[in-house]
C-alpha cells in the first residue's frame, strides 16, 4: 500500500478570540496517500486554509491527531518535509529571482545549489529570468518563482494555499495546465486549497468539500478523469457531473446561504 | 489582565530605581570616602553618606524629590525660588513658539501642495534647513533678535517656531496628499474648487498626520525654549536654572529642574494625545 503522507483522525481546532471560542475545524478525518493531488474546496471561513496550516505546523490543533510522513506535524516541519506556496508570492524584494529560489537551500545547508536553482526555474518555465528582481515580473511569473522556490529543496509534499487566487482567469488557466504537467514530471504529493470549483475538478485526483461553522468535511469525491488532462476537458459531461456534485456538496453545507 | 500588562513596565522602572540607588555609592565615593572613614567605616555609614550628600555627584531619588518638593510646593508659585514660576516662563515661550510654528507649518504645507513651483524651490531648502543645528545657533539668534526691541517672549519663541515648523510642514504635506486618487477624482466629478477640496477632503484626511507632527513639535518646542534661555544670562526659566545650577555646582537644582521639564513635556504630549483622541472619535475613527 502506498505511504500515508498525511493522516488526520478526529482533528479539531478551536480559536480563542476576543469574541469567544471559534471552532474552525471539527472532527476532520483525512488520509492523503503518496502521489495524490488533493484539493480542499469550500467558501471563505470553512477552515480549508486552517487545515492546510495545521498540516504545515503553522497552526496547532486543539483535539484529535495529525501525522505527516508518519511523524507529528512539528517534527515534519523541522525535518523540512514540505514546501509551502502562499496566496501571494512572498518573495524577498531585495533578492533577485535566483537568490529567492536559493533562500531555502541556504537556510537548510543543501548542496548543488546552482543546479537546483536552474532545474526548478526551468520546471516553471522561467529559465532566463534569473537576474530579474521580483517587481520586474508580472504577478503570474512571481507566483511561478514562488513555486520553484517551494520545490527547490525537493520536498515530497507540496502545500499550496490558493496560489492562483490573485491572478486573472486566463493566466490562471495557463498556470493550472503547467502545474499538472509539473506534477506529472515530479510525482509529488500535492495538497491544494481553492475556492474555485472548475480549478478543483481540473487539477485533483480527489476533492474534499468543506463547509463552515464549524469547519467540517461534507463530501469526498474521487475524480475519475484521466490523469493527463487538457483544458478542453472542462466542457465534457463527465467534468460537469463532478462539478455538479461538488456544488451540491457545498449547498448541503449551507455554503450558499448568508 | 491589566496588571499583567503593566508588569514589565513596572519591573523596568523598579530596576532603574534600584540601579540608581546603587549607582550613588560609587559615583559619590570621592566625596563620601573620607567621611565614612572618619565615622568608622561600615556599610550603614557608606549608605547613609552616599544617599544624603549635600552636593552629590549623583543625587539619590529621594533627594531629587525633596528638592522638587521644596521648590514647587513649599514656596509660593510666583516667587523666584519656585520651579513653577520658572516652568511658567519657559512654557509661555514654548506655547507661543509652538502655535506660531504650527500655523507656519500648516500654511507652508497648504502652499506647497497647491503651488508646484513653491514646492520645487522651497522643499529642498526646508529639508536642508534641518541640517543646520538651529539649537546651536540659538545664542546668536537670541542676541540679534533681542536688539530688535521685540518682547523677550517672542525672541525665545522664535527658536521654538523654527524648530516646530519643519515636522508640521512635512507631516501636513504628507497628510494633505494622503487622500487616494479615487477620492480626488470624486471631487473633480463634483467640479469642486481647490478651496473646497482642501476644506472638505484634504484637511480632514490630514488630521492624523497633523497630530503626530504636533506631538513631536511640542516636545521640540520645549527643548528650544530651554536652550533659548541659555545665552542671554537669563535669570528665569528652566534653562536658566540648569545653567545656574551648572555654574554653581548645585546638582540638585539641575536634577530638579530637569525632572520638572520632563514632567511638563510628558503632560503636553499627553494633552495633545487627548485632543487627538477626541477629534478622531468625532470623525468616527476606530477607538
Amino acid at each position, binding site marked *: 500500500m502506498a505511504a500515508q503522507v498525511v493522516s488526520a483522525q478526529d482533528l479539531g481546532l478551536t480559536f480563542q478570540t476576543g469574541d469567544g471560542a471559534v471552532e474552525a475545524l471539527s472532527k476532520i478525518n483525512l488520509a492523503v496517500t503518496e502521489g495524490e493531488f488533493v484539493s480542499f474546496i469550500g467558501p471563505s471561513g470553512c477552515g480549508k486554509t486552517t487545515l492546510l496550516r495545521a498540516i504545515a505546523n503553522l497552526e496547532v490543533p486543539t483535539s484529535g491527531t495529525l501525522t505527516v510522513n508518519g511523524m507529528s506535524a512539528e517534527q515534519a516541519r523541522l525535518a523540512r518535509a514540505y514546501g509551502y506556496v502562499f496566496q501571494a508570492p*512572498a518573495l524577498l524584494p531585495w533578492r533577485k529571482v535566483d537568490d529567492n529560489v536559493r533562500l531555502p537551500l541556504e537556510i537548510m545547508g543543501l548542496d548543488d545549489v546552482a543546479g537546483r536553482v536552474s532545474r526548478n526555474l526551468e520546471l516553471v518555465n522561467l529559465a532566463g529570468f534569473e537576474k530579474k528582481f521580483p517587481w520586474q515580473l508580472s504577478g503570474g511569473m512571481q507566483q511561478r518563482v514562488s513555486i520553484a522556490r517551494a520545490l527547490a529543496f525537493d520536498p515530497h509534499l507540496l502545500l499550496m494555499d490558493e496560489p492562483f487566487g490573485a491572478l486573472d482567469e486566463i493566466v490562471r488557466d495557463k498556470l493550472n495546465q503547467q502545474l499538472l504537467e509539473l506534477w506529472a514530471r515530479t510525482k509529488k504529493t500535492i495538497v491544494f486549497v481553492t475556492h474555485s470549483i472548475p480549478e478543483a475538478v481540473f487539477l485533483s485526483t480527489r476533492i474534499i468539500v468543506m463547509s463552515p461553522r464549524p469547519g467540517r468535511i461534507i463530501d469526498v469525491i474521487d475524480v475519475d478523469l484521466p490523469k493527463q488532462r487538457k483544458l478542453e476537458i472542462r466542457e465534457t459531461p463527465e467534468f460537469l457531473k463532478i462539478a455538479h456534485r461538488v456544488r451540491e456538496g457545498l449547498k448541503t453545507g449551507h455554503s450558499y446561504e448568508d | 489582565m491589566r496588571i499583567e500588562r503593566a508588569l514589565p513596565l513596572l519591573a523596568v522602572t523598579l530596576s532603574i530605581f534600584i540601579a540608581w540607588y546603587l549607582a550613588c555609592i560609587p559615583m559619590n565615593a570621592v566625596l563620601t570616602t573620607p567621611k565614612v572613614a572618619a565615622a568608622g567605616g561600615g556599610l550603614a555609614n557608606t549608605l547613609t553618606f552616599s544617599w544624603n550628600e549635600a552636593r552629590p555627584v549623583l543625587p539619590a531619588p529621594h533627594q531629587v524629590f525633596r528638592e522638587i518638593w521644596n521648590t514647587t510646593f513649599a514656596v509660593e508659585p510666583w516667587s523666584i525660588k519656585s520651579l513653577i514660576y520658572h516652568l511658567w516662563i519657559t512654557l509661555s515661550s514654548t506655547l507661543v513658539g509652538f502655535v506660531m510654528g504650527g500655523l507656519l507649518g500648516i500654511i507652508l504645507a497648504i502652499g506647497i501642495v497647491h503651488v508646484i513651483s513653491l514646492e520645487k524651490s522651497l522643499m529642498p531648502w526646508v529639508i536642508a534647513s534641518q541640517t543646520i543645528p538651529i539649537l546651536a545657533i540659538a545664542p546668536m539668534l537670541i542676541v540679534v533678535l533681542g536688539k530688535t526691541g521685540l518682547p523677550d517672549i517672542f525672541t525665545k519663541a522664535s527658536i521654538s517656531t523654527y524648530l516646530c515648523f519643519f515636522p508640521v510642514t512635512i507631516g501636513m504635506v504628507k497628510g494633505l496628499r494622503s487622500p487616494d486618487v479615487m477620492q480626488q477624482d470624486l471631487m473633480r466629478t463634483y467640479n469642486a474648487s481647490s478651496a473646497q477640496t482642501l476644506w472638505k477632503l484634504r484637511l480632514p484626511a490630514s488630521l492624523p498626520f497633523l497630530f503626530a507632527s504636533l506631538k513631536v513639535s511640542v516636545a521640540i518646542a520645549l527643548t528650544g525654549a530651554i536652550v533659548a534661555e541659555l545665552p542671554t544670562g537669563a535669570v528665569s526659566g528652566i534653562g536658566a536654572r540648569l545653567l545656574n545650577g551648572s555654574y554653581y555646582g548645585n546638582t540638585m537644582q539641575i536634577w530638579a529642574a530637569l525632572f520638572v521639564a520632563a514632567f511638563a513635556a510628558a503632560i503636553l504630549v499627553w494633552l495633545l494625545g487627548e485632543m487627538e483622541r477626541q477629534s478622531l472619535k468625532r470623525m468616527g475613527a476606530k477607538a
Partner: protein
Amino acid sequence: MTRAILTLLVSLGLSLLVAASFSRANPPTGQDWALSLAFVICSWVTAWSLSWVVDLILPKAQSRWLVPAIFGLGVIAAWEAYVHASAIPVVLLPSPTEITAKFVNSMPTLMADFVQTILRAVIPGWLIGCGAGFLTALACDRSDFLRRGLLPLGNLVAALPIVGVAPILVMWFGFDWPSKAAMVVVMTFFPMLINTLAGLNASGDMERDLMRGYAANWFTTLVKLRLPAAMPFIFNALKINSTLAMIGAIVAEFFGTPIVGMGFRMSTEVGRQGLDMVWAEITVAALVGSTFYGCLALLERKITFWHPSYRR
C-alpha cells in the same frame, strides 16, 4: 507664464522701493525693522517667482536641481543687497561676502573646532549611540518582557528635553570631548531603538510563516528576512540621528568646554560680537550636516534599492 513674470517684476520693484527707504541709522529704528520684514517678504517672493519663471522655461530634468539652486542664490543675493541697503551694523547681521572672507581667513580655527566637535564628539557618539540602540532593539526583540518594559519608557524619553542632561554629563565626564560624546550617545540611543523595533516588525506575516516553514531559527530569520526588511526604518533613524548628534555635541559645549569646539566658538563669538565668525561656524556646521546626511542617503539608496519609494 505672464503671471510668473508679472509677479517677478512687481516683487522686484517693491523690493527695490523698500531698499531705498531704509534710514541707514545706527542703531536701526523701529521703522527700519518693519521695512526689514517687508524686504524679507518682497525679496522672498522675488526669488521664488524667479525660480518659477526658470521652472516654466526649463525641461524637467534640469529644473529639479536648478530651481531650488536659483531660489537659494536669489536669497543670498537679497541678503547681500539688504545688508548694503539698510546699513545694518555688522554686529547684528554680516553680509555673505563678509562671512566668506572670515571663513577663508579663519581656516585653522575652524579646522580645530571641526576636529574637536565633529571628529571627537559627533562621530564616536553617533556610532556608539546607534550601535547601542540597535543591540538593545535586538535584545528587546528576543525578550517580549524587556520590550514591553523598555519601549514605553523609550517613547517617553524621546519626548523629553534631552539637552537638559548636558550639564549633568559635563559634571560626570569632565569638560573635554567625552561629555559631548556622551551627550550624543544619550540623544541618539532612543530614536535608534524605537525605529529598529518598528523595522523588525515590518516584515510581513506571510514571509515570517515562510521562514517558519523552513524551520529557520531566530538568528537565521533575523539575518535573512527581518534585518533587510528593517533597513528603511534603520536608515530613517540614522539620518535623524545625524542631525541630533550635531545638535547634541554643539549644545553640550554651551555648558562647559575647553577653549576649542564649534559650540564654544559660537557662544564666545556671540559674546564678543564677532557675528561673522559665528556665521562662518554655522556654514561649517551646515556643510558637515549636509555631507553627513547626504552620505547616509546615498548608502540608503544602495542598500534599500528595492523599496517601492525608489520606483518611479
